[in-house]
């Protein structure tokens, strides 16, 4: 039978290559695995890899090419929200199918997109709830620190509303942003120290974008802000990002995700091993130290969900696959059986909170009992009450 083409739309060059290359790798690995097990409906999958080069208009161009020229059945791709926004109209116009694997700010629902990363209520809100709990240190004062773009701004807007609803006063919230690629956190860390001196337990909620994290954490470590005093919980720092950081001074700082490499279960062990082996076989640089992370798991789950839906629909036709996707379940490396919501194209996901270990992995210190349904339209943003499904 003819192979089924699927597109992989991740930046392999430019600023985002640092994060997205691993997603391309895991997508290729998953496709190989599916092919090795007989493919989809007896047809092999043929990946079409393109490089949108961290350039947003190029994302749209490549998306159009994948869907209209290469006629791929589905596309797995994008990381930044702006890249997703750039390709959305293309998928809508051509009725294509996109799987988006990264946590994001919500406020969006597209018929042609399936979101396998977290919405704010599946990551940010639980993390803050944890910080406010006795166990998490009973924080009373919050620094919302981010890179100046939409995801941090939106997340912090939601968090501010959430904190207010929990009775935190505006005076107890400090919000600050840095430009993309900012690498000098001296002033900001001094400000945090000052803010934290008010006598109430303070925590930092970081939505700092990948590139700025190393200088941020280095400065944090050298300025002597310890996790036991002022814990930092990050939403964009995972195992892959920590590979570039000397983690010893950071032990105890936190991250919130729906998956950690350190999750212990059979699915995850297999997943990690598969990826390690694949990396070795394919000559990925530093293959012996490769790690898995949340968006990689989301990519993996997304591809399998799509496979199941195609098999259920017995067709790769977009509309049929979309119809078949709602309600699909998959036993994911995160240790839970994840369900694709019937109406809102988001996965029900568990939430984990991990503390950084000296070896760059996370100690899971808290997790939800079961997967949580996504709220892409945050109830903390006025006017969203009426919005839910597609």
């Amino acid at each position, binding site marked *: 039978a003819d192979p089924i083409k699927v597109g992989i739309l991740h930046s392999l060059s430019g600023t985002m290559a640092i994060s997205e290359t691993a997603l391309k790798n895991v997508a290729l690995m998953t496709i190989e695995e599916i092919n090795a097990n007989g493919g989809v409906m007896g047809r092999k999958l043929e990946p079409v890899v393109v490089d949108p080069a961290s350039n947003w208009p190029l994302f749209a161009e490549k998306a159009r090419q994948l869907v209209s020229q290469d006629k791929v059945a589905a596309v797995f791709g994008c990381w930044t929200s702006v890249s997703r926004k750039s390709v959305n109209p293309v998928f809508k116009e051509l009725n294509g199918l996109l799987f988006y694997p990264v946590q994001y700010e919500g406020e969006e629902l597209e018929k042609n997109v399936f979101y396998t990363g977290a919405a704010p209520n599946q990551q940010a809100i639980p993390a803050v709830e944890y910080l406010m709990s006795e*166990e998490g240190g009973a924080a009373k004062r919050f620094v919302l620190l981010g890179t100046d773009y939409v995801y941090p701004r939106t997340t912090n807007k939601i968090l501010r509303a959430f904190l207010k609803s929990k009775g935190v006063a505006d005076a107890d919230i400090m919000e600050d942003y840095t430009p993309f690629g900012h690498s000098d956190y001296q002033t900001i860390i001094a400000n945090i120290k000052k803010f934290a*001196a008010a006598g109430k337990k303070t925590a930092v909620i970081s939505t700092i974008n990948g590139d700025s994290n*190393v200088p941020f954490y280095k400065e944090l470590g*050298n*300025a002597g802000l310890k996790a036991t005093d002022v814990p930092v919980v990050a939403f964009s720092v995972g195992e892959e990002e920590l590979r570039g950081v000397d983690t010893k001074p950071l032990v105890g700082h936190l991250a919130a995700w729906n998956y950690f490499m350190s999750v212990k279960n059979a699915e995850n062990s297999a997943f990690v091993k598969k990826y390690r082996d694949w990396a070795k076989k394919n000559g990925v640089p530093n293959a012996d130290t490769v790690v898995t992370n949340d968006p990689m798991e989301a990519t993996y789950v997304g591809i399998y969900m799509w496979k199941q839906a195609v098999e259920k629909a017995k067709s790769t036709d977009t509309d049929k696959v979309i119809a078949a996707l709602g309600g699909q379940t998959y036993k994911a490396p995160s240790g839970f059986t994840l369900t694709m919501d019937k109406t809102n194209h988001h996965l029900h996901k568990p939430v984990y909170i991990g503390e950084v270990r000296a070896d760059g992995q996370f100690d899971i210190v808290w997790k939800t009992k079961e997967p949580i349904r996504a709220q892409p339209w945050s109830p903390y943003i006025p006017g969203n009450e009426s919005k839910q499904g597609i």
Partner: protein
Amino acid sequence: MFRLILSGRMLGLALWLVLAAAPVRAALDPSLLAGFAGDFQSRMNAIEALGVAGGDDARRVLDALEAGNLGVAADKAVIVDGDTVRDAASGEALAGGRDDVELITVNNRVRRTLAGARAALALTSADRAERLGAAITLGDNPNETLLPVFERALAAETDEEIRGILARAAARINLASPDAPTRLRAVRALGESSDPAVKNLLEGLLQKHDGDWVEAHEDVRAAAGTAIAAIDRRIAVAEGVGTVFSGLSLGSILLLAALGLAITYGVMGVINMAHGELLMVGAYATFLVQGLFRSHLPAWLDWYVAAAIPAAFLSAALVGVAMERLVLRHLYGRPLESLLATWGLSLVLIQAARVVFGPQNLELANPAWMSGGVELAAGVVLPYNRIAIIGFAVFVLTLIWLMMQKTRLGMFVRAVTQNRPMAGCVGVPTARVDTLAFAIGSGVAGLGGLALSQIANVGPAMGTGYIVDAFMVVVLGGVGQLAGAVWAALGLGIVSKFLEGWAGAVIAKILVLVFIIVFIQKRPQGIFALKGRFADG
């Protein structure tokens, strides 16, 4: 909140007992451990109780907890020791495998409590450093019930520094004393502090609550006012110094990022868009040296940075020589083409790094002597790595200055750039001078990369983040003017930091750029404009 205070009270009371009389008991009372089987809060209480109890057995349990080996099995605290599971109280091996044990998660909260418990014990230690650490830990979060502990410790303590900390900690607690003279004394003692937390505490006294002063006594309020003013002064001075330091530090980083370019572009006139990638080469060389040290000389790991200095210089210089020999050589006097070719080179070098080392950032650790910092005042820390980088910048700058101004090579380089054919006609081997100069410029860029590796990302595209800044520094200073680059870098650093304190990082960055635009209007040839009749054709 209530529970927290209560537990503090318990801890204090128990400590008082310990300090007052009790010789250390030899055995561990199993009831002390019962709390571990309960909820989170009861576990915290149990940790504190262990701290109070003291003794080697308690220590053993706390150690196990810290190592993540303490757990609960069948409502009993147990320690997992390899494959055997032992009763935490007695240390006896128990039946049952480790799979039956629910290990206690050590999170920040646990660690904090643990640290408190350990500190309470350490306050009586014979080792000064231990006592000091303990005093700092407890002094950061003093609690009224700890007062007797502090006072007793104070009575026994001879070390001035520790006494100071304990005294201020005691004073903080005494602010709540019902006795007005005690409060007054406490307020006066706290006036010596430079800690914003203390200031906040004092400010609390000056507030009105339901129409009544929080602090009833007028004299105490007046003293508090004086104390706040004194603290404010100290904080203001410390913060001023801190901001200037941050500015210097940012400036020295900009300078290190730009110095190589000041040679290759400023002096030689090659628009080197691959300059950032030379920084990257230097940083990667540093990474490789770190790797070598980790695997072969772990004992000397702290000195890998020193060993990386020649490595970073040479590797970047070698790449520079290759660039010069293969490409730039053919482009002298055609700066436009050098822009295009080096842009191409930069693409190639970035992708080469990505293919060889992978796209992710590399981990470079600050050596121990570059970690941490000196604390000028609470909140104002001068990190050692930044101090080291400032020093390094001075060092590199001196080297370059000597090279350009005091050696014949420097003069030849300048002559060749100013008039290549004529330099040949006085006997300068221009080709060799070019290569050498470019190699030195590249090598200096490599040193810049080494410095950057100590504070920021090391990854394939790290250079792209600096190229714009580097060009701005070189140009703002006045092309070809080494001194100009220094002033430009320091100026930009300090201006940035003051603006940042005032307007936030994003607006500050925008303002700095606007500042550059306006500044160039006033000095269209940079800070150190070339004066003289030859300056305009």
